[in-house]
């Protein structure tokens, strides 16, 4: 294993601590703003079509999958770091885990489902409940 000069090791440690402090500050600011209501999450799941409808199923399923995949990814990263810590001779540098194709497909289905739902909601030519709405189909011209 290569021996680095002590100044490099010090620089590495310093950079690590600076990044840790920076991430902690950002996390605390976000948490503080959520707690005090400056970041308003109350409409996180609301339909934004102005019709007074309730929670959006598309948004909810997207939220669930993003949280599930993100937390699983985080757990795998932590688990790999711990394995390398306990068995330093085996692996070397920890790398980010590979994301399987099925997971990408699942996220793709979820995201495109949300996007298509939005398109159906706001798309022209599909009709709206209100007369004169943006999505109302024009009447056919009467021939004399």
């Amino acid at each position: 294993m290569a021996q680095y000069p002590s100044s490099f090791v010090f620089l590495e440690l310093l950079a690590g601590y600076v990044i840790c402090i920076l991430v902690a500050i950002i996390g605390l600011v976000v948490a503080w703003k959520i707690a005090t209501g400056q970041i308003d999450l109350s409409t996180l799941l609301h339909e934004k079509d102005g019709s007074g409808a309730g929670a959006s199923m598309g948004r909810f399923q997207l939220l669930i999958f993003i949280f599930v995949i993100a937390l699983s990814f985080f757990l795998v990263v932590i688990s790999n770091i711990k394995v390398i810590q306990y068995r330093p001779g085996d692996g070397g540098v920890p790398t980010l885990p590979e994301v399987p194709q099925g997971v990408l497909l699942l996220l793709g289905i979820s995201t495109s489902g949300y996007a298509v739902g939005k398109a159906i909601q706001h798309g022209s030519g599909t009709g709206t409940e209100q007369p004169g709405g943006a999505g109302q189909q024009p009447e056919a011209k009467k021939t004399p």
Partner: protein
Amino acid sequence: MSIIIRIAIWEGYAFAFGLCGAVLLQILTGSIGMRGLIEGRTPGGLKFLSASRAQLLLATLAAAAQYVHLAWQNPQQLPDVSRQWLLLFGGSQALYLGSKFHGRRSRRFHI
């Protein structure tokens, strides 16, 4: 070096689980509105229980629970999602979106 790794790990835990916890807490306390999640509306404003929304909710929760179970069993790598689950979830999405489109087009209901 192990101290800094430990700090980073705890920071990551706090940030990831804190964010999820904050959203979950607000959902449970009602700050994030979940009203009408499985409801649809008629053009007259009447609410009804939407089967297509309900089935998507069930498929979402089932797929998420199954994935969490797999990830918990083997945390060394991200588990793959099987073709059956992808078909189930994709079919459920297609059913929901098809129903939404049909209701919108025929102007009979809105989900």
